[in-house]
């Protein structure tokens, strides 16, 4: 990261992609969106040529999904299946594809198995919540936020030991602590253990911790592509999706290699949606906003959407909107 296309994001929208009333995703439309997006990003005419820029048949590829809002809001199995198909098409054996997340109890609520070849692995780091066995004891970030006894956050073991490339598939969501949760947070908090310790009471340390984790090797160099699933999203009380009132349907996917540039677009998307709903900005850091977040003008934490800009200072991508090239495609 930020890869070969810094400061670029491709946004592909299709009204047919999802039926907001039922949540049913149109698989073929999603395939077309993915195809149009990757070709627009790379300039290649053929999908295989575009994917071959990032992935070779020898790679062991991780697809980092996001299931924190599952079962309703998650990396869509239709999109994940389409990505897996493209990997197979460029020669990656299905047994070298790993769909992964941190928490097994969330992953099992989504029918990924129905959308990928049987040999594709679908795994979670924590089959039992809180277990450290799925993490690499040798790769960790150690810091003490609030006097917690366990000061380490360890990298998922398959990331350090098995995968050679990672495709990051986050959702389009507001986040109570970090303001938004997109590419950066999915690859940071989604790849390391013991990260909830960074929040206590209204204070959250996501401002610097997200970028710090995302910049850890080998994460940084193995994440080669981001495909943000914005078919459905969450505009308040994220990353969960317990209240249907806070779901929305952007009906788009966003593709790029620069996680900062993509998340910078996400900030605008969430802010625009919140404004249309009459909700306060995610940048409002006054203590008056603290309270029961069933009210969209209240929140449990002082949000830290500045984490995206902070990550740019670590060299993870381009934050300045004036320097970001956004390509828009309508299908």
């Amino acid at each position, binding site marked *: 990261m930020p890869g070969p296309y810094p400061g670029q994001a491709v946004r592909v929208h299709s009204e047919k992609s999802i039926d907001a009333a039922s949540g049913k995703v149109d698989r073929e439309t999603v395939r077309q969106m993915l195809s149009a997006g990757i070709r627009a990003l790379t300039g290649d005419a053929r999908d295989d040529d575009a994917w071959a820029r990032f992935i070779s048949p020898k790679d062991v590829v991780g697809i980092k999904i996001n299931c924190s809002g599952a079962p309703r809001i998650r990396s869509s199995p239709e999109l994940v299946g389409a990505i897996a198909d493209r990997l197979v098409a460029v020669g990656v054996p299905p047994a070298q594809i790993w769909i992964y997340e941190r928490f097994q109890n969330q992953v099992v609520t989504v029918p990924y198995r129905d959308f990928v070849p049987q040999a594709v692995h679908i795994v979670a780091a924590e089959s*039992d919540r809180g277990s450290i*066995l799925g993490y690499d*004891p040798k790769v960790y970030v150690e810091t003490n936020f609030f006097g917690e006894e366990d000061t*380490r956050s360890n990298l998922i073991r398959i990331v350090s030991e098995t995968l050679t490339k990672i495709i990051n598939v986050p959702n389009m969501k507001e986040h109570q602590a970090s303001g938004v949760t997109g590419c950066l947070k999915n690859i940071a908090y989604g790849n390391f253990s013991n990260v909830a310790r960074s929040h*206590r009471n209204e204070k959250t340390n996501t401002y610097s911790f997200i970028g710090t984790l995302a910049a850890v090797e080998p994460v940084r160099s193995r994440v080669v592509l981001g495909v943000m699933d914005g078919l459905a999203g969450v505009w308040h009380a994220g990353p969960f999706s317990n209240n249907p009132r806070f779901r929305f349907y952007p009906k788009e996917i966003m593709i790029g290699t620069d996680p900062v540039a993509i998340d910078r677009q996400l900030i605008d998307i969430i802010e625009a949606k919140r404004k249309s709903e009459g909700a306060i900005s995610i940048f409002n850091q006054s203590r008056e906003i603290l309270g029961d977040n069933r009210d969209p003008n209240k929140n449990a934490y002082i949000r830290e959407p500045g984490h995206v800009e902070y990550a740019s200072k670590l060299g993870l991508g381009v934050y300045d909107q004036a320097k970001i090239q956004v390509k828009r495609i309508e299908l």
Partner: protein
Amino acid sequence: MILLALAAALPGVFWDGAPDTAPALREAGIQRIFVPTAQAGAWKSVDGISAEAADLLKSIKLRPPAANYRYDEASASRVPWLDVNGWHFLRQPQGRYWYDVAGAKAPLAAAEAFAWGASAMVKPNAAGLKPLGEMLSFLAGIETPTMQPVADFGFIDDGTATAGEVMNLLVRHSLLFRAVRVPDPKLKLNVQLGTKKYPLEQAKNPGAMAQIIRADLTDDNRSVRIYGSAVVVGRLESAPGRLRVHLINYDASRKVNGMRVRVLGEYSKPRLAAAGSPDLALQDYAVLSGATEFTLPELKTYAVIDLLK
């Protein structure tokens, strides 16, 4: 002589049931009990059970060891409250203690007393008898060479409730100290409440005081660190060329699925004994510069890891 010494190190079982409960004791593998003085005579004629009179009033009653999650209370932390009796043992090492515990807390109490080398009796209920017997059998199999407790700092214990509660919080965080009367210059740090550095006013929040002490000691200088569990407490003992790590899971209802342990010192040969997990092996064992780390894949109640140079 050695056998006697081993037996003395084991916690005793206090049983106030009548002699007709002897079959339950035998089934649990318990052959030696302490009984109320009034019942001692009646137990004399029971085959296979050795009974000795004991007066609980002459012993200090301890809280049942436990992890309390307190889901019904708002808190600033998700870390559970642990009921750990280690500070009692450090304050009064020569004390005689007893526990009144039910079910799975009976073996936990026995493990706690054993780990701290305390003289204690465990009074189980019927449900706790079998697991207690299994734990005592496990403890009896652990060799008990002469070893010294490892302490990273001295805590000047003035015997007050305030000092006791700070000691309690230190033990819960596996911060290893020795209760001393006067500062010990051989230790990395000496803590005396009521001084400018450790004001009594701040000690009214014992958790915060424990953090101040931890910061002064620094995590790098701690002889043991436990990662991956908020319900496990560690204790160390040492002898030349040898370190013993005691690990106790205070959540008796649920095993811990993996924890990482770091100790100061380079030890190349580990030996693990884990109660209820006879085939368990350490994972990702690493001897680092000045430290040793390993992963214990599970911890039901209690494990002892001997590390040799």
